[in-house]
């Protein structure tokens, strides 16, 4: 799989390729969490601008990646969702309620800058990272999604 993950400031930019096979999705998710750890990223930006089809597996990928990132102290932003993809997601009830969505990369960058957590003087209006609750349940879900082999640490 080509390199689709880049580090940009405190942001980990993931350009999700179109036509991902199911096992490639799991591989991508594993790489994302590995890179979050390596770069100490605060934000994971999933950019979907080249994705033009969508199914329920795709929604699960976003949700589970978001949960894993949360476990490691990062938050997920999605950007560049195409109109048709959004229409399908709404039809399928995939509303990504706890995930921030922005129009494109510009807005994503602006958003992450407005909401930095690694500055010494924190902006009071900035949202705080979610509390790490119910770790066991989250871990179980991760295990269910990626049973092939234990995650490298």
């Amino acid at each position, binding site marked *: 799989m080509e390199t689709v993950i880049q580090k940009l400031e405190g942001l980990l930019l993931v350009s999700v390729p179109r036509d991902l096979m199911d096992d490639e999705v799991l591989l991508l998710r594993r790489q994302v969490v590995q890179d979050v750890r390596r770069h100490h990223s605060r934000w994971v930006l999933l950019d979907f601008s080249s994705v033009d089809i969508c199914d329920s597996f795709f929604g699960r990928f976003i949700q589970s990646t978001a949960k894993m990132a949360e476990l490691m102290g990062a938050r997920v932003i999605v950007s560049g969702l195409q*109109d048709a993809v*959004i*229409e399908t997601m*709404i039809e399928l009830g995939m509303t*990504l309620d706890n995930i921030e969505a922005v*129009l*494109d990369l510009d*807005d994503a960058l602006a958003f992450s800058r407005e909401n930095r957590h690694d500055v010494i003087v924190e902006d009071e209006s900035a949202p705080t990272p979610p509390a790490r609750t119910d770790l066991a349940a989250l871990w179980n879900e991760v295990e269910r999604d990626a049973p092939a082999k234990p995650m490298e640490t």
Partner: protein
Amino acid sequence: MATQDDLMRRIDELEKALGESERRYQSFVENHPYGIHENAPDGTITYVNQAYCNIFEFDSPDQVVGTKIWDLMPTEEAKEWLRQHLSHLVNDQPEPATDVNPGATVKGKPIVVRIDWDYLRDADGNITGFINVTADVTTQKRAEAFLQEQSKTLGDLAKSEVVSSGELKPALGEVTEASARTLNVQRSSVWLYDEQQTKITCADLYEAGKGHSEGIELIAADYPGYFAALKDKRIITANDAHTHPSTKEFSESYLSPLGISSMLDAPIWQAGKMVGVVCNEHVGPARKWTLEEQGFATSIADFVSSAISAQQRRQEAAERARLQQEVIEAQQRTLEELSTPVIPIMDRILVMPLIGSIDSLRAKDITRALLRGIREQRAKVVILDVTGVPIVDSGVANHLNKTIQAARLKGARTIVTGISDAVAETIVDLGIDWSAIETLSDLQTGLLAALDSVGIVLARKRS
């Protein structure tokens, strides 16, 4: 009282008169254009005239006299049948009648003859033989058969759904096949002019036993005589195509390689313009085209013309339908835009006033228009104004929820304004949970909230 001399003279006179009468009849019979022959009751031919020899291709009457009438019959069964028939005539003596029979000459050429016959009797009424008058009706019968075949072919074409369907290719295929079959030629083809009339292209060629092909081109400038003839003749009848003034240009390059000897070409006219030609090409010994065949060829050209008209009508109808569809689609788009207006009122702020009832189809249009608006205007905040929506029930609330979620995935926050007291009442009474949705009473306060969220501050000028 008459003397013996008188009697003798009278006899001489009578004999002379009889001789004259006999010579007159003899001459009449010998020179009659119909074949005449007599035969004995046993079938032996006792007399034939010259015309009979001509019809059956005998060299002289001597060849025939003494033979049996069934000797010319082609098979043993036919000979036996004629023997039986003759004995039936002798024994039963039916009324004389006219027979029309196919047969063959002594040299084997097939002919059709009509025979009128009668009995020859002696003074006591006993049958001594038969006299037969034979006419060669081959040409007439062939013309009749051709006319029948032709009218059947033309009738079939006139009734054919393929010819009038507007699908030119299969229509031409049917026409060329019918033409080749009816005219009994090896090659029958339809050629059509290009727009500039500089060349003709073979649109369909039917070759007997080979099937259909197409695509050969002939440049008009290479064959000036032929193309000039097409323009001012109703039909080109080339019995010998190698020497005919209109077709001899083809002799070396086209006719000789294909073994074509005779051509019967009818130009296709349409709306006063020559648009092509139907070519009938005969392979083998040269043949003489009959008037009936020429008439048939022009009828075939007319059928091609009507097939082309049908195709044009069909294309025109398709074009009209397409235009109509375009107009309808344009109107639909306008209507959609009118019913789902997205108004950018300030940097990154959109207002979408909703007017009229909202069903699931319209909710989809609204979502689609809103997503497009957000993308194009890079909007951060969307104000959905529901002042013009007469009833907000759980269905409408559901639709609006989906629209708001879609906008959020596109990166825009939604404020719903125009919640009247009546609507607020309904929403609460129906138990619709809109607590997660930002709602305000009117557009004005909605706008202030939107400005606030994108960081724009309104300030009054100091006077």
